[in-house]
């Protein structure tokens, strides 16, 4: 599964900032951006910014640290951050904008080994009203995310025996060949796995053996390099005999055994929980709603349903961080609930409507529900992105 390109927030490089702040009245941000740059560094973190009216405010800063620097702007009272500059090279000049309400603010500079070092506290007055200010957030730090990733990992770990048991049931069933019972057992186990999507990254290469999708344009029944759930799916729904099903299920069982054994020692990047809450649904939209993972069972909608459960589960662990930071949290949860309801309508006692059988209106309703949820989940990943060690007041 594709993963968002990740870069670790490399320990904040020494910021040598010189912040030159210029306040832009309505309609004059062109003037603001031409303001003289202020030098910033950990020694002098924007001390040239002394005061100013609120509203749209531009900060043109030149890194005077001789090394990489990180700079952010925060409100001293709430600890909310309004912008951050990372990857700020020595001698480079950048312009950032913030829309500031009245209050006290400071720039904070960090270098690789220095900081965070706050600059002078600046009182902003005569600014836009609070309602018109840009939304800042109290940054989410690694300290916030660590216990969440541990709790999430524990939850995943607790699901693995269930998965393993369901695969044993499947193994027994396929001894009788591609029976309806065997197909039902396959679906049960596959959906369990699909709810664990938040841990794809942590499953690493093991996932490839368990749930790789079939290659496009290749018959999944005969594709030699296809293994795992989708291989078994292709065999079951094409009517393959027990002699072919049994070794394929044994391979899957072996991969899951490895997973059960290795997962407790795996490291989950604390950032992953929020990324997964978002990206499980991105993957559902990209792969399941396009049907590209289908190897014959036509159960993509069932998989989407399991993915929604997986996203909801990941989100549930993040609630303590999101409740104070994400105004649309309830809306996001409602969107997932709604998507689950829309998709569940196509479950007829374990027999799922194939994508191709949806009417246009049904298809549009499914697409709209998932699209709506995934737009809202994007903020979850943005808000929970680990930022600014030491930024919290």
């Amino acid at each position: 599964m594709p993963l968002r390109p990740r870069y670790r927030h490399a320990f904040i490089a020494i910021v040598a900032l010189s912040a030159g702040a210029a306040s832009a009245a309505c309609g004059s941000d062109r003037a603001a951006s031409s303001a003289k740059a202020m030098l910033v560094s950990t020694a002098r973190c924007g001390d040239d910014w002394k005061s100013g009216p609120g509203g749209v405010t531009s900060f043109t800063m030149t890194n005077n640290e001789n090394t990489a620097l990180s700079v952010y702007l925060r409100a001293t009272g709430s600890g909310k951050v309004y912008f951050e500059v990372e990857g700020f090279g020595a001698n480079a000049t950048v312009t950032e904008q913030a829309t500031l309400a009245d209050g006290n603010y400071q720039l904070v500079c960090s270098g690789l080994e220095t900081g965070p070092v706050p600059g002078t506290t600046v009182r902003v007055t005569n600014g836009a009203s609070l309602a018109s200010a840009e939304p800042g957030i109290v940054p989410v730090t690694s300290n916030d995310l660590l216990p969440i990733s541990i709790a999430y990992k524990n939850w995943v770990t607790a699901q693995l025996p269930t998965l393993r048991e369901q695969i044993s049931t499947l193994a027994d069933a396929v001894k009788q060949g591609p029976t309806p019972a065997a197909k039902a057992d396959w679906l049960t186990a596959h959906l369990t796995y699909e709810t664990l999507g938040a841990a794809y990254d942590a499953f690493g290469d093991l996932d490839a053996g368990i749930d790789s999708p079939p290659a496009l344009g290749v018959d999944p029944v005969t594709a030699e390099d296809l293994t795992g759930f989708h291989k078994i799916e292709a065999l079951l729904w094409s009517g393959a005999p027990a002699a072919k099903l049994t070794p394929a299920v044994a391979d899957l069982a072996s991969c899951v055994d490895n997973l059960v054994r290795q997962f407790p020692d795996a490291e989950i990047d604390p950032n992953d929980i929020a990324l997964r809450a978002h990206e499980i649904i991105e993957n559902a939209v990209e792969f399941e709603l396009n049907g590209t993972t289908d190897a014959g069972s036509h159960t993509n909608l069932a998989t989407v349903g399991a993915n929604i459960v997986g996203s909801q589960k990941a989100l549930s662990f993040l609630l303590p961080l999101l409740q104070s930071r994400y105004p649309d949290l309830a809306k996001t949860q409602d969107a997932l609930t709604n998507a689950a309801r829309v998709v569940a309508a196509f479950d007829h006692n374990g027999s799922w409507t194939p994508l191709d059988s949806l009417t246009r209106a049904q298809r549009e309703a499914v697409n709209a529900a998932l699209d709506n949820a995934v737009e809202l989940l994007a903020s979850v990943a943005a808000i929970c992105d680990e930022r600014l060690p030491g930024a919290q007041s």
Partner: protein
Amino acid sequence: MNRPIVGRRGFLGGLAGVGAAAALGTGLAGSALAADDASAMYAFEGPHQGGILTPAQRAAAFVAFDATAADKAELADLFQEITGRARFLIAGGTPANIGLTDSPSDNGVLGPVVPGDGLTVTLSVGASLFDARFGLSGVKPAKLSTMPAFPNDALDRTICDGDLLLQICADNQDTVVHALREIARATRGGMQVRWRQDGFVSPPRPSGTPRNLMGFKDGTSNLSTSDAKLMDQLVWTHAGRGEPAWAEGGSYHVVRVIRMLVEFWDRVNLREQENMIGRRKDTGAPQSGTDEFDTPDFGSDPEGEVIQKGAHIRLANPRTAQTDNQRILRRPFNYDNGTDPNGNLDMGLIFAAFNQDVERQFVAIQTRLIDEALVDYISPVGGGYFFALPGVKDSADWLGSALFT
């Protein structure tokens, strides 16, 4: 002053009306600076929508949507959201700064300051919007119906019709794409794309009216959009006279995606081509005249010895007293889509037209064109009948507001 609306997403599940959207947008008060580059910027507010009388821009996307909003209230939200996005995009300016709380509020395709770039966003509604779903059946425009298949049509219904149509036009293709993405992003839960056809207007070759992909100038005898009285008679719908009160200032919006069988056409000799059209291919002049804008003379040619009786321009506009009120405002775009399995190129014309009464005008013309000689070389495949909503009156108004009162 136009304000950017923060690109809020998650359309369903929250009834964020205009007020709420504006509140979110106020973070940007003062930052909605019109781009002061040289490109055209059209007014968003007025009695009529832009993109109708507006001179055709170089690039266009016709995108039909089906409403997936759950009910009438969500549909109203959808119209407000489209209005908010269109209002900002047309004026241009600096997109909302949302700090670290989300992915960027604007996709950035047009750079940090969005230029107007001649953008128009025209929202039209299809007959299906007035079915039982939203309780709007009582206010359907009187002449709005589902586009029928005319005898020479080869309609693929998957690329026809729709609850809504966005006609997005601008001086550059990137501005069209930017607007489409921004509007779609803000409205994901409320509507889903049904079909889309992009188009372009060619530059004059070498002068006069732009040519279509058959190589003929197309639109030479179009209505004069500066003639307000004529527009009132032929383009704008009026309250009363059978139309609901809210329809004042709207227009029936006909879109026909007409495939041109260009390989076949290119194998047809010039005389035959010109006889089918009724104009010279090089100058665009009617066969009865010398210059492009000469008026075709049918009166002294009753037997069709100069301009054949079956010529396209003669059937489409016979220039008689009886057909005078059938004339339509055309706003066509060329399209170029790709290839067929047989290697033929898929290209043609997006016939777009505005008229006061689709039956009196477009249907009458199209009926005369049934079995014209040209039908062997063209194949209408998609499109639909829509109704372009009246304009947005002021900064508090929104597209379609009168539908919901």
